[in-house]
């Protein structure tokens, strides 16, 4: 378990990415303070009103106080509503900035770290982590600032009447605002580890009881396993009990601090009244006001807990961005690359096309799957890469596209290293369609526009026809505008959709991984042949496939995973 200091440091590290606007934070703190100030004022003025009334003055002297009490009552209710909205607004704006920063950091980052994001749990956790960091604003920072403002304000207000009482209140509020939350935060690291371990044990035992129910019943071990679960639960309960100890002490201390402030004020202020330094009405205010002031420090233990949770989320986000190898930039100095604008038409190609020399490629941290490869794909030609599965065809394709760094040798694309290409520059040279390319949860048309923002409907229809999806689109309820997702399209449809997406790209070089997968052999062969025929339009095509039926249409064939690895022309 991390210390409070570490938590603060780690949360502070991601705060710039939230891009919080000072004015909005100030508004949230001001409204929060107003709510509690109205609460304190309600107590104070009500006390004054009652004590003064008991002295039987003319009613007109009480009218202002009577109106004041009612006003503060209304202000408190309305302001509570507004301050909650203001705090959430600040937090949500911060979350939007943080999410954009995380996305952009990952977008510029290394491929292999981003590839890990495809796993559903990592993805979901990243989403939750971003929200958790946002929560530190609503449940941590704003309440802490409000507590500081209102506590000090109350002390100053009491000091105007009785400095001695103010000292008592200050001391008790200090306990409530500092000692109580710190006590709540103090969990010893060993108890925390035991708690996590015990919970894991319970979860493992539960899972295995359900998964192995048949096995356990027949082998007569069901009862003993249930007993083992019971023991794991006992350990878990013990650990929870130990972890609850500082929390219980903290909650009790908060009650004690509030009570002590009333008792202490009575003991200090009553002699002041008798000594004539304090009037009767002031005594009433000084004694009853603290009861409301402690409302400000009440959310602080929860604030510390939230800080701890947010810090853990902040650490994961920082690690994710560091792993992507990019210092994510703060939102205000984002470079705004205008890539939603129409993609520029490819620059006329003067270069030699795709050239690899002495190339070795490997997934980071793994042994090279392809070594010492020399190949050339001049503009307007095609290359088919064939070979059994597991021989590194995909890794080679990713390296050629510049998504992975070569482990040896060089790859150049019209004279530049493809790894250095970003955004529109990349689109001007190459478009890669991987086997696991994502089908976005949006319409058919928007899925194609993922490759080219200014795609017209007619162009989309033509590309879908070319990919053999014309009939499929006709069956869709809203044609091109039908929403689809990775789960609603079949394997074959998905494959063709990815081909259509590659076709609409303006890139002069298309790299495709297994475009014929999940399709009947003759259909797959026809599709690969169509793709290879794109060279007639001046484009270059590199296709990885294990459908060998159409590969003789390619200008060159590279067989890998066999003894020789040279292109046969």
């Amino acid at each position, binding site marked *: 378990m991390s210390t409070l200091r570490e938590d603060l440091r780690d949360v502070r590290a991601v705060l710039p990415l939230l891009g919080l606007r000072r004015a909005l934070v100030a508004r949230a703190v001001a409204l929060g303070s107003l709510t509690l100030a109205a609460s304190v004022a309600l107590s104070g003025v009500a006390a004054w009103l009652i004590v003064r009334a008991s002295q039987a003055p003319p009613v007109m002297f009480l009218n202002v106080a009577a109106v004041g*009490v009612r006003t503060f009552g209304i202000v408190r209710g309305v302001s509570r*509503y507004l301050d909650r909205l203001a705090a959430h607004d600040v937090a949500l704006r911060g979350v939007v900035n943080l999410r954009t920063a995380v996305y952009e950091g990952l*977008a510029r980052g290394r491929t292999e770290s981003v590839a890990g994001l495809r796993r559903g749990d990592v993805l979901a956790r990243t989403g939750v982590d971003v929200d958790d960091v946002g929560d530190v604003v609503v449940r941590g920072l704003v309440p802490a600032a409000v507590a500081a403002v209102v506590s000090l304000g109350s002390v100053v207000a009491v000091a105007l009447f009785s400095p001695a009482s103010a000292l008592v209140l200050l001391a008790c509020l200090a306990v409530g605002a500092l000692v109580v939350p710190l006590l709540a935060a103090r969990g010893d690291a060993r108890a925390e580890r035991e708690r996590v371990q015990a919970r894991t044990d*319970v979860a493992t035992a539960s899972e*295995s009881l359900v998964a192995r129910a048949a096995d356990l019943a027949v082998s007569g071990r069901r009862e003993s396993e249930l007993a083992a679960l019971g023991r794991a639960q006992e350990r878990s309960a013990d650990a929870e009990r130990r972890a609850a100890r500082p929390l219980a002490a903290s*909650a009790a201390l908060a009650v004690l601090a509030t009570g002590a402030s009333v008792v202490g004020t009575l003991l200090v202020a009553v002699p002041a009244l008798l000594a004539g330094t304090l009037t009767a009405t002031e005594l009433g205010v000084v004694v009853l006001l603290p009861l409301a002031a402690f409302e400000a420090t009440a959310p602080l233990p929860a604030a510390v807990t939230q800080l701890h949770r947010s810090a853990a989320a902040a650490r994961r986000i920082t690690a994710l961005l560091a792993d992507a190898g990019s210092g994510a930039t703060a939102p205000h100095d984002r470079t705004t690359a205008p890539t939603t604008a129409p993609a520029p038409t490819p620059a006329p190609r003067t270069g030699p096309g795709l050239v690899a020399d002495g190339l070795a490629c490997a997934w980071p941290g793994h042994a090279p799957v392809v070594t010492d490869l020399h190949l050339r794909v001049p503009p307007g030609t095609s290359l088919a890469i064939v070979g059994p599965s597991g021989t590194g065809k995909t890794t080679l394709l990713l390296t050629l596209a510049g998504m992975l760094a070569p482990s040896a040798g060089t790859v150049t694309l019209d004279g530049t290293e493809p790894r250095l290409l970003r955004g*529109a520059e990349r689109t001007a040279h190459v478009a890669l369609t991987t086997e696991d390319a994502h089908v976005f949860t949006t319409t058919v048309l928007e899925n194609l526009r993922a490759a080219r923002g200014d795609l017209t409907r007619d162009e989309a229809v033509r590309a879908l026809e070319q990919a053999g999806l014309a009939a499929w689109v006709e069956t869709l309820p809203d044609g091109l505008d039908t929403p689809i997702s990775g789960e609603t399209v079949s394997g074959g449809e998905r494959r063709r959709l990815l081909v259509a997406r590659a076709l609409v790209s303006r890139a002069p070089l298309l790299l495709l991984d297994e475009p014929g997968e999940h399709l009947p052999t003759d259909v797959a062969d026809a599709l690969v042949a169509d793709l290879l025929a794109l060279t007639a339009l001046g484009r270059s095509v590199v296709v990885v496939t294990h459908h060998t039926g159409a590969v003789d249409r390619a200008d060159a064939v590279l067989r890998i995973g066999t003894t020789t690895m040279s292109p046969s022309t």
Partner: protein
Amino acid sequence: MKPLDPRLLRHARSARTFVVLAALLSVGATLAVIVSAFAIAHALAPVVEGRAELVDVLPAVGVLLGAVLARTGLVWLRERLGQSAAVATVGELRGALLRHATRMPHRWRVRRGDDVTVLATRGLDDLVPYLTGYLPQLLLTAILTPIALVVVLRLDLISGVIIAVTLPLVPLFMWLVGVTTRTYADERLAALTRQGSQLLDLLAGLTTLRALGREIGPGRRVRQLGDAYRRTTMQTLRVAFLSGAVLELLASLAVALVAVEIGMRLVYGHIDLTTGLTVLILAPEIYLPLRAVGAQFHASTNGLAAAQRTFEVLQEPLPAAGTRPVPAWTRLHLTGVGVRAGDRGYLAPGNLHAVVEPGCVTALAGASGAGKTTAAMTLLRLQPLDDGAIRLEHDDGSTDLADVATDGPDGWWAQTSWVPQRVATVGGTIASHVGATDDAIRDAAAAATGLLDVVASLPRGWDTPLASGEGGLSSGLSVGQTQRLELTRALVSGSRLVVLDEPTAHLAARDEAAVVDAVRAVARAGAAVVVIAHRPTMLAAADRVVTVRSTPAPEPTTAPVPA
């Protein structure tokens, strides 16, 4: 959803203790609050009225101190006991859930097993905030609010009436706000979920966009989506916070009204200062637990929903248990056996006829989804039949398998063995897992199944430790070797019926041959062996091959054949 489900008290003993305890603590807290209010008023009023000095009010201050200390202690107790009682309650529910789920028919578990696992591992933990946060406040509302209200009514009728009138308005307005905004909130919530998943979708497609050189533009899309998400959330919150705002406004306004009305009557001497102060201090305390209930409500709903799903599982009837001891059977006779496949309107297996005899290997073949595993489960008494019967034939007639006991030394499971595809071990050594008391018997059995060769090849032999979990893989045993280990265990235990689930799936040819030999050895030793089989080698080694098929379900009017 009921705020306190009686089924919770019925199923979890700790919850009963906890509710009683929390109620007692609430009574204590109520007394402390009331005593504090009286003590403060009695310490303050005489001094204000110039009737007393510090020494005169010291007894009142002492009483106040006592009440403060009592309240401190009560809060400490509530936190300490609350947490452990909550964990114990969750533990009891989890235990009951798993105990029930492990006794349900196999097919039910196939359908609901994942739900049960999620409930047991995560869902039920959400009950802790309900038990430690919401429930105590609910009890406090039920105890403190009426008692304090009666005290105020006795002290001062007018103030009491103001509170008594405004108090019911709080839940009434919250309910009204809730009802009128529910449709709106549901729509917003759906929009939120949609936008949230769009954002995740863009993250998931990041690699694809990079491959197309289109990753930078969507940064702006993420921002736009995020802004839309924020606006929708704020719209939801504007509505969601309304009920809370009504609660706060009514509470503070009512306190203000009480203060003003007491003040005005004090001027004319209709009420004395001590009473006025007492009522003023008590008034906000009456609303406090109600406000806390409102604040904790949302945190409690997940846990309550999880508890409800647990109770639904616990209410599912368990299959009937037989009581008769297992007779000395010579054959198992399956006639027209059928098991309903969920709600899908057919039987899988359906109309299954087979004879299973000791000394024979019977293979269950058939397409996937035909119900081979379910058929095996009916033989193991882990799945009741919806059609047909399985009879144990013996010298003096036959007994329905459904009538014999399962547990205990005379039960069916004492003489059956089940070897799943992935064998699970629970630690210990190879020797302890096989569980023989006589080394000679053990070695003979191991020789028959080929385990002896495996043991001989291990440096620590019989004392090789087994990992805890599936496959025992970290122990260095292959899948084929664990199959032989399990068959040896079946031989040693003298099982009369051994059922295996595709023991040679995923095995290389050499391992496959070894396992097939081991299966034959078990049959030779006199056990009836039933094996779910796909591969030709295993089917060829069987004495009988029974093809399992699914059939349309019998007409709804046809009652299941009585057991």
